[in-house]
């Protein structure tokens, strides 16, 4: 395996392929600002939950840096994301719409985001990726486990590259995001990938 491109993103810093990028504002507004400045052609972004916005913006920045045509249908790329809090931010917001019996109006638009794997689907749809998409909820950041899921996805001979993400957000002001474009051919084995993930996570 080989890491072709990488991004690390927290509320305090954003780094793309080792280069620090400027961020403005805080919380979800930071994601909105990045969307407006770097993407801007996908109004559905504003309907997404926090996890969706985080994954979408991170994937856009990462994929824009890849020297390859975008939005061309392909089956050889998978999307494999993990986190700890699943869709907790959306779950809480949805809960607010159903917690008061006198004001009981369950929001369909919030409900659809009460599954964490919606973000991988959003990214696959946006980029016309027809490979595997999966979202794994882990007890904590576990690089060996993540690397194992990446290696498992490469068991499919069609899969030549993967968008791999740790997209954790516990509320609208706190998130950790690592995103990597990993190619099948390269010098890293599963443990090498895990060690690299560990180093990246430590510097988040």
């Amino acid at each position, binding site marked *: 395996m080989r890491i072709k491109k990488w991004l690390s993103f927290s509320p305090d810093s954003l780094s793309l392929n080792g280069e620090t990028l400027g961020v403005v504002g805080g919380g979800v507004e930071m994601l909105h600002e990045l969307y407006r400045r770097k993407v801007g052609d996908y109004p559905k972004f*504003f*309907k997404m939950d926090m996890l969706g916005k985080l994954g979408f913006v991170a994937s856009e920045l990462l994929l824009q840096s890849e020297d390859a045509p975008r939005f061309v249908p392909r089956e050889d790329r998978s999307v494999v994301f993990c986190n700890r809090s699943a869709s907790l931010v959306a779950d809480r917001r949805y809960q607010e719409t159903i917690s008061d019996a006198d004001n009981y*109006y*369950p929001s369909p*638009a919030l409900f*659809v985001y009460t599954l964490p794997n919606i973000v991988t689907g959003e990214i696959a749809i946006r980029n016309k990726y027809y490979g595997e998409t999966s979202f794994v909820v882990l007890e904590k950041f576990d690089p060996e486990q993540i690397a194992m899921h990446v290696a498992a996805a490469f068991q499919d001979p069609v899969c030549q590259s993967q968008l791999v993400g740790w997209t954790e957000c516990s509320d609208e002001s706190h998130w950790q995001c690592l995103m990597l474009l990993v190619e099948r051919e390269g010098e890293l084995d599963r443990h090498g990938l895990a060690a690299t993930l560990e180093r990246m996570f430590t510097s988040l």
Partner: protein
Amino acid sequence: MKELIEELKVKIIEALNLEEVRPEDIDENASLFGDGLGLDSIDALELIVMMERNYGIKLKDPAQGKEIFKSITVMADYIQKNRTK
């Protein structure tokens, strides 16, 4: 009626998170779905909830939405005739 149309534009933008749309951008006679505002099936459900919450209208058959949500003008006309609050 004009006032209700303007109110609906604001409420729809808010309910559907149409962040980059301003009320004056919405043509009240244009289709809400498809080529108009480009809304989808989840938005339709959200509009049903919005009508119940704000105007006390409970659609018995969600399929009615197809007719009611043709445009803001059609929607306003339906609300005016059926609202309970």
